């Protein structure tokens, strides 16, 4: 009996596999959306899905005369899980185009997987690791969002020249995304003549920063903090409690919506913090305002303003739709025409023009911001200036940039 039960289950499994394995109809294009709907990044993950849905519903779920079906998949920010989810979308649901994933190491893992699936086109979500496209890229992986180093464009120069910070200490989490951000900050900062005497890499998962704060040098002008979400808040609070009074400089996720929207004492300490990133909530620009208004109208229970994740997924989806329209939904011949269109695309987004470089990585505008108090005491990132068309090498000669080597704890250095 026991065995019969198992036999039946196996037979059922095989039957389901045969039934689900049928391909898509010719008049339909299947798009897979991959974001972190579970775990600590669940809130950004949900916002990412809002971005995709917003772009698709604006196009009425059609592009190039074909109907678009969206199939969602989720990970928990663990790269293993992200690849499993991507594999399910590609091999089981037979999607034509994948949009995702959300975080850096997931992006690197999915890029590697993309190489084994030449017939599917992979479009990045919001993952921002440099080497997803810079080194050893996959020919079918496109990124219409910018990487963590690009996000820092203009910040290093700004704090050196306008704020007069000559010596800055760095506090950042110990993994690849903050390394990338630190590189993006330090490269122009050091070129301008600034010095970074010490960098503190804080182990991930550590919440008690008091020992790091105790070690911070007293003779610096400011502290550059690249921590995300909960960690940024923990650090800022403890720094304040320890009587710290140096001005702060933020990474892109240090003073994002999560931090600005958080409750408690921290609000006081982030006012006036300069930072840079791919979006700025309060940019006074009609296209951006229309985007925010549309987001708020469509998702009344969403975040107060679209996060950079919603924005990234929205832009990527827009790119897919635009390219599909250009080729009339023709995905034949290994999607060659479609990919050609993607590479050549000049995309008009809520944050300006986006084009791709030869590694299929975005060249886009970056926003230099400062935290300010808005109406009703709401904190927001006020735009100081827009850095136009930042490329992946931050304007440096590509050969020189590549010669710097991959980012790490000790690269770059300017003591």
């Amino acid at each position, binding site marked *: 009996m026991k065995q019969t039960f198992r*036999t039946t289950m196996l037979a059922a499994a095989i039957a389901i*596999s045969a039934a689900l394995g049928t391909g898509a109809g010719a008049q339909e294009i299947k798009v897979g959306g991959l974001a972190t*709907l579970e775990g600590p990044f669940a809130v950004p993950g949900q916002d990412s899905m809002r971005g995709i849905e917003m772009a698709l519903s604006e196009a009425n779920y059609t592009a190039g005369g074909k109907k678009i079906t969206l199939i*969602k998949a989720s990970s928990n920010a663990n790269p293993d899980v992200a690849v499993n989810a991507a*594999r399910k979308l590609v091999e089981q649901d037979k999607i034509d185009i994948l949009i995702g994933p959300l975080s850096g190491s997931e992006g690197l893992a999915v890029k*590697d997987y993309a190489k084994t699936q030449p017939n599917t086109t992979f479009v990045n979500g919001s993952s921002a690791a440099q080497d997803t496209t810079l080194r050893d890229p996959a020919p079918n992986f496109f990124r219409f969002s910018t990487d963590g180093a690009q996000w820092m464009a203009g910040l290093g120069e700004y704090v050196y020249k306008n704020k007069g910070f000559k010596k800055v200490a760095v506090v950042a989490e110990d993994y*690849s995304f903050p390394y990338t951000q630190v590189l993006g900050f330090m490269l122009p900062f050091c070129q301008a003549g600034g010095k970074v005497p010490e960098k503190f890499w804080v182990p991930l998962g550590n919440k008690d920063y008091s020992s790091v704060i105790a070690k911070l040098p007293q003779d610096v002008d400011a502290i550059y903090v690249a921590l995300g979400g909960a960690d940024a808040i923990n650090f800022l609070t403890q720094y304040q409690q320890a009587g710290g009074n140096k001005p702060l400089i933020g990474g892109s996720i240090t003073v994002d919506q999560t931090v600005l929207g958080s409750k408690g004492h921290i609000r006081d300490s982030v006012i006036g913090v300069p930072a840079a990133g791919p979006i700025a909530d309060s940019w006074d620009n009609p296209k951006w305002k229309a985007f925010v208004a549309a987001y708020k109208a469509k998702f009344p229970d969403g975040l107060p303003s679209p996060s950079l994740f919603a924005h990234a997924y929205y832009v990527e989806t827009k790119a897919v739709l635009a390219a599909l329209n250009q080729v009339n939904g023709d995905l034949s011949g290994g999607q060659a025409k479609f990919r050609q269109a993607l590479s050549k695309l000049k995309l008009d987004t809520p944050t300006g023009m986006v084009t791709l470089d030869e590694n299929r990585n975005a060249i886009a505008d970056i926003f230099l911001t400062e935290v300010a108090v808005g109406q009703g005491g709401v904190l927001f990132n006020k735009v100081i200036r827009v850095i136009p068309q930042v490329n992946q090498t931050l304007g440096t000669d590509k050969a020189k940039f590549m010669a710097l080597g991959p980012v790490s704890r000790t690269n770059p250095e300017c003591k």
Partner: protein
Amino acid sequence: MSAVAPPSTAVGTLARGRAAQRRYPLRPQHVIVALLLLIYPLVATDFWTLQIGAQALLLGVIALSLMFLAGYGAMVSLAQMTVAGLAAYMMAIFGVSAIPLSLGWPWWIVVPLSLVIATLFATFVGALSVRTEGIYTIMITLAIGMAVFYLAQQNYTVFNGFDGFKGLEPPVLFDVNWRGPLPFYYLCLTVAALCYFAVLYLSRSTFGLSMQAIRDNPRRMRALGFDVNLHRIAAYAIAGFLAALGGVLFAWYNGRVSPGSIGIHSIIGILIIGVMGGLRHPIGPFVGAIVYVLMQTFAIDFIDRERFNTLIGTVFLLTVLFSSDGLLGLWDGMQRRLTAPRARRQRSAVPSEEG
């Protein structure tokens, strides 16, 4: 007593060794299952072969090591995924990966080396945790598992921190790409079958019977002159070897290993697989693994994936609350109710099956 190790008549098990051996004759059903497992990849798509089939088999092997400890020794170790993950890490550190930290040694050195290191680690965990008894095991092994996770995540000189290792690949041997869905499935099937029969064999060996007697009454076994702790440590070593085998497959399946692979979710995942399937018979972990993998893959198509953890947690809770031994236990219960007279006969023949 505990949920997973129903007491049987203590030392009597030893004496029943011969009888126990006759309890699992080769039936036609066994042949059918074996055949189905063999032809499954020929009918199934690549996705079903690899992601469902192979993944369930390799997770089943890791959970089997838990079943071995819990079922025969009443030691519920939460460090089995850690042992497997350590084997995977060793594959990456000594073998070939895309990270410069890797030493790049050939696979025929790296695979045995990883197995040995992971087994030694498991033995060490065993030696630490057998010094206390019962429920302490869970605490100690969970603490060890989480400590290793945090260490792997925070350490860059050995474990490459948060990013871990990627670009792990099985060797190309006899002109076969062992990462291909079909070869990899058969590789997993072979390992799983070997482990399954090894556990079945061990459970009826003198060692296995002593383990079960120790599980039921350690004091009496000690009085009989058995070195209880040594037996338990040996069980940890054997289970560690099984988990390490699963870990090697795990590394090849994912092509990568990172702290997330050995995090609390993965640790609990193996526990859920074991408990959900049933910890009394070595087939349990594989049944649990199939159900777990199917749920993980397809839950999003039926319910909101956002609440996947609530779903799996609830299934787990209900299993623990309502079945003494996972799905196998439920199945046994149903079977008994359907064929009551036969079951009664069985019961009288095999008193150790009931509490």
